[in-house]
């Protein structure tokens, strides 16, 4: 079953158009939403949540967002770029207000997550570090039994160890059957946890496939000259210290590509209009 289905999602700004995007995330998967700054990652997540008005169809566990907005949102835990809300309110007050919206709110689970994440509920939101804010958001989302987490750059601003903790948390949640779609620039996190990659470039969908398949498709090859690279139709060729480098799609050629390298070369290719 699909946890999230997005069909023909489109948002038009005066200087930017997102989509139309069509992609899906299967239940129990961790999907990474990647792309350079301004590619449309946050716009995509906000459009899914209807925080911005856009065209297209969004279904969450089969529930049509436009028809069953409340029911669909009950299944979602959304964290939009850290928890920057109600800075002068204690965590307990925010949690109490949130709990009233969810018929399946589990107060015991919330207390358990708070203890597990070392959250002091009498503290004010502004007294939390960025990492703790993310953990507070996750505790809120998980206590109402969210089956799908939509996270907008949750690891930006976290130190490497906190990012590791966050990735551990995601893997643990995956073990509990929770589906995750999260946007990030830090592809090393995705290499560790993601099953699937949704790659946006300039508002368009460049890739939507399992991470393994994406990594297997491309190899990085070094060339001594630009013409050598052009001869084998290398993708996104760029100058490096002692020659040129580009992606090739011949399985035995070159070396394995990282997600970072695939992104960079594909962006170069986009820029060249390939």
């Amino acid at each position, binding site marked *: 079953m699909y946890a999230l289905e997005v069909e023909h999602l489109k948002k038009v700004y005066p200087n930017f158009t997102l989509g139309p995007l069509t992609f899906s995330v299967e239940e129990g998967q961790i999907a990474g939403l990647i792309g350079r700054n301004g590619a449309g990652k946050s716009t995509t997540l*906000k459009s899914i*949540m*209807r*925080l*911005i*008005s856009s065209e297209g169809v969004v279904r969450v566990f089969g529930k049509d967002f436009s028809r069953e*907005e*409340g*029911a*669909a*949102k*009950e299944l*979602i835990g*959304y964290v*939009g770029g850290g928890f*920057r*809300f*109600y*800075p*002068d*309110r204690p965590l307990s*007050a*925010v949690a*109490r*207000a*949130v709990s*009233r*919206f*969810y018929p399946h709110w589990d107060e015991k689970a919330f207390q358990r997550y708070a203890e597990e994440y070392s959250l002091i509920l009498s503290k004010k939101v502004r007294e939390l570090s960025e990492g703790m804010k993310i953990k507070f958001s996750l505790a809120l989302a998980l206590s109402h039994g969210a089956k799908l987490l939509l996270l907008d750059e949750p690891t930006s601003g976290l130190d490497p160890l906190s990012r590791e903790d966050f990735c551990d948390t995601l893997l643990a949640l995956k073990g509990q059957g929770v589906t995750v779609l999260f946007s990030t620039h830090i592809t090393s996190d995705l290499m560790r946890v993601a099953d699937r990659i949704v790659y946006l470039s300039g508002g368009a969908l460049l890739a939507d496939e399992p991470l393994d398949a994406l990594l297997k498709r491309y190899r990085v090859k070094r060339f001594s000259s630009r013409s050598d690279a052009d001869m084998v139709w290398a993708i996104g060729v760029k100058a490096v210290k002692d020659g040129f480098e580009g992606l090739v799609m011949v399985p035995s050629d070159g070396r394995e590509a990282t997600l970072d390298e695939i992104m960079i070369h594909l962006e170069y290719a986009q820029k060249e209009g390939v």
Partner: protein
Amino acid sequence: MKALIKKEFSLCLHPTAAIFLTFAAFVFVPNYPYEVMFFFSGLSVFFMCMAARENGDLAFTCALPVKKCEVSLARILVAGMFQCALLLLTAICIAVKQACFPDEMLVNLAGNSANLAFCGLGALLLGSFNLVFFPLHYHRPEKVGVPFLIAAAVQFMLIGILILIRHLPFAAPLCSPDFANVGLKLAVLLAGLVLYCMITALAARLSMKNFEKVDL
């Protein structure tokens, strides 16, 4: 909706919403333009919306399992509750004043006298604020000051007109103590309350429509 209203009270309410309710006691001041108490009611709505903006409340609330349009409706309903409370407190203060004060102190020379008809005029002033402020605010929720200034300007203009009318001969019966011309005053009160409900419902409808199109 119940959860949304409770959230408004627990996370968004500004202390001035309660403090300005005490301004109903203005009616005890002799010869004072009592209508300004309704401006302060609008000011408390402004503070409430500003505090909500600073707390990132709209984006947070819209991610909760509610329809986007309900988020704007909840705040208008909360503002409406405080406005109704202000009208009720004003009516109580007026009843006390009518019962305890001598007749010569019941006629207000600076504005409309505090009687039943005044409550109807107050309801009209509150409704006019709602009709201007909320649709403008929910058209661009990051803007709170400009919609408030425009709404307050409209309100003061209406206050000016009402005070001007008060000095015209045909309006004299409305400025008498409550036991005189009761029928006329009740008619003004009822008309004011009906108009308040209709105007506020229209304001809510426009605000919800505008807010649906907003990108948070």
